[in-house]
């Protein structure tokens, strides 16, 4: 882009503009170069676009509050009405216990961590592999599919249902719930959409509360049971409201973001055939597959922007921010920063710092489900390239649409063609 075009983009652009939101890389690059802490007037937020500034924020969770950032973002513009609907019709308004600040956050986080260690996740791999293989086999002979609705969404919903101990026939409702919850931090819903989403969240909460009460009385081997019966080092459990918010967070966060990553996996296989060939030739090379997952997450991060709010005046990236400044951390921009990841648009499996992308965030709020997410993506990639080949887009790349949200970059539907292998 020319300097003039970049200046115009910064002067008039907003992450809420559907065109910029769908294809944001020029906007990110302009910010990183000319205005790294950019005030987005329409969004009412500062967009933090450089790697080092996001890293600074992640190391100071007291000055940069997730609690204030997240809960200010939630249902913004309709907040009171949203909360009243949940109070009145959804069994209660339950603030997100994990979207909090230390020291409260530390206790909640510790209770969640035990379920998600890389070694515990490894033990789940055979079961997840079976789910993946069954799903691919069910579409492999068709030669065409929508990678999102025929594969990514059913796969992640099935896995999270197994983890949480929910009923698999809830698939469609769970997808609607996921969209409704994530839309609350997406900043692109109008009032009518908010009302529809709020009703979905009421339905979600009633369903979860009933399940949690069942597990309270009759614990099983699943994460809902783990959470309702969890005790910290002092023997203290979670309040029911905290537990509802955490089960809700696990269901949604473990679903929407991983489904987005799996959609991106198909997008990369369809648009970078040399990568697809490499994976086919190396599907059982675990090191290469691990590196592939990291580079996929770096180059197409599912979560691109999450919020913080300053709790005091602070210097950041050469700018003085007042207390109460609402920030959007643009992970997708940081992942594209040339002096951290040279030739950032190259899909390069040999990067020495391949794990330093910000797609899982960082600091005390780093994604708690990251090992499970990595494993799901790796198993999916491995089994897909073994079973189908010649994957190509069945629509023009320019016609790919994304969900309307600043928080994630999620492909809405991805029609593909392919041939069966083996």
């Amino acid at each position, binding site marked *: 882009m020319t300097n003039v075009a970049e200046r115009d983009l910064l002067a008039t652009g907003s992450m809420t503009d559907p065109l910029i939101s769908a294809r944001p890389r020029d906007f990110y690059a302009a910010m990183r170069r000319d205005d790294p802490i950019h005030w987005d007037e329409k969004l009412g937020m500062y967009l933090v676009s450089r790697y080092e500034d996001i890293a600074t924020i992640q*190391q100071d969770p007291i000055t940069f509050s997730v609690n204030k950032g997240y809960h200010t973002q939630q249902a913004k513009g309709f907040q009171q009405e949203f909360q009243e609907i949940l109070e009145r019709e959804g069994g209660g308004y339950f603030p997100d216990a994990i979207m909090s600040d230390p020291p409260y956050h530390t206790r909640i*986080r*510790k209770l969640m*961590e035990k379920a*998600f*260690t*890389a*070694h515990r996740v*490894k033990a789940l791999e055979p079961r997840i592999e079976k789910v993946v293989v069954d799903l691919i086999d069910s579409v492999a002979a068709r030669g065409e599919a929508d990678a999102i609705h025929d594969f990514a969404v059913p796969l992640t919903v099935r896995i999270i249902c197994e983890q949480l101990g929910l009923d698999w026939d809830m698939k469609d409702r769970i997808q609607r719930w996921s969209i409704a919850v994530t839309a609350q931090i997406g900043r692109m819903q109008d009032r009518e959409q908010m009302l529809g989403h709020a009703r979905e969240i009421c339905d979600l909460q009633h369903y979860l509360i009933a399940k949690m009460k069942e597990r309270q009385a009759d614990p099983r081997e699943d994460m809902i049971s783990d959470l309702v019966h969890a005790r910290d080092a002092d023997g203290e459990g979670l309040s029911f409201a905290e537990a509802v918010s955490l089960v809700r967070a696990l269901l949604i966060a473990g679903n929407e973001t991983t489904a987005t990553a799996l959609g991106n996996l198909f997008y990369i296989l369809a648009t970078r055939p040399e990568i697809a060939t490499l994976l086919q030739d190396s599907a059982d090379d*675990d*090191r290469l597959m*691990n*590196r592939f997952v*990291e580079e996929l997450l770096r180059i197409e991060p599912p979560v691109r922007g999450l919020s913080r709010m300053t709790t005091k005046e602070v210097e950041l990236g050469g700018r003085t921010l007042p207390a109460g400044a609402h920030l959007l951390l643009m992970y997708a921009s940081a992942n594209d920063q040339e002096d951290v990841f040279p030739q950032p648009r190259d899909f390069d499996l040999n990067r*020495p*710092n*391949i*794990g*330093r992308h910000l797609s*899982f965030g*960082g*600091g*005390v709020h*780093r994604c*708690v489900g*990251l*090992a499970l997410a*990595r494993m799901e993506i790796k198993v999916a990639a491995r089994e897909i390239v073994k079973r189908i080949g010649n994957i190509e887009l069945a629509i023009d790349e320019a016609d790919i649409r994304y969900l309307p949200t600043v928080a994630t970059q999620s492909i809405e539907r991805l029609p593909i063609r392919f041939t069966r292998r083996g």
Partner: protein
Amino acid sequence: MVQVTFVDVNGVERQVDGGSGDQSLMELAKANGIDGIAADCGGACSCATCLVHIDPDWVERTGQPDDIEFAMLDMVADVATASSRLACQIRLTDALDGLRVVVAQQ
């Protein structure tokens, strides 16, 4: 009681005593506020922010990473070396009394 020497990211050397019971090298570092040990993931072997270089004299006793830990070390190959480990994956046993590690620059 196990005594461990940490050289933190600022080059400052500190000797600290291990607590009683089952403890990881990462937990000992966190309990003593060793600079450069962030341990974002809380010991889940999932983030490589508790990376240390084991003193050559101790590499044999701390042992080799398993495949899950190796995958994490490989993702930070810009700073990890053949003697690097994730502190969260090292259990402090009596055999490690006197261990010396250098916290990786990240």
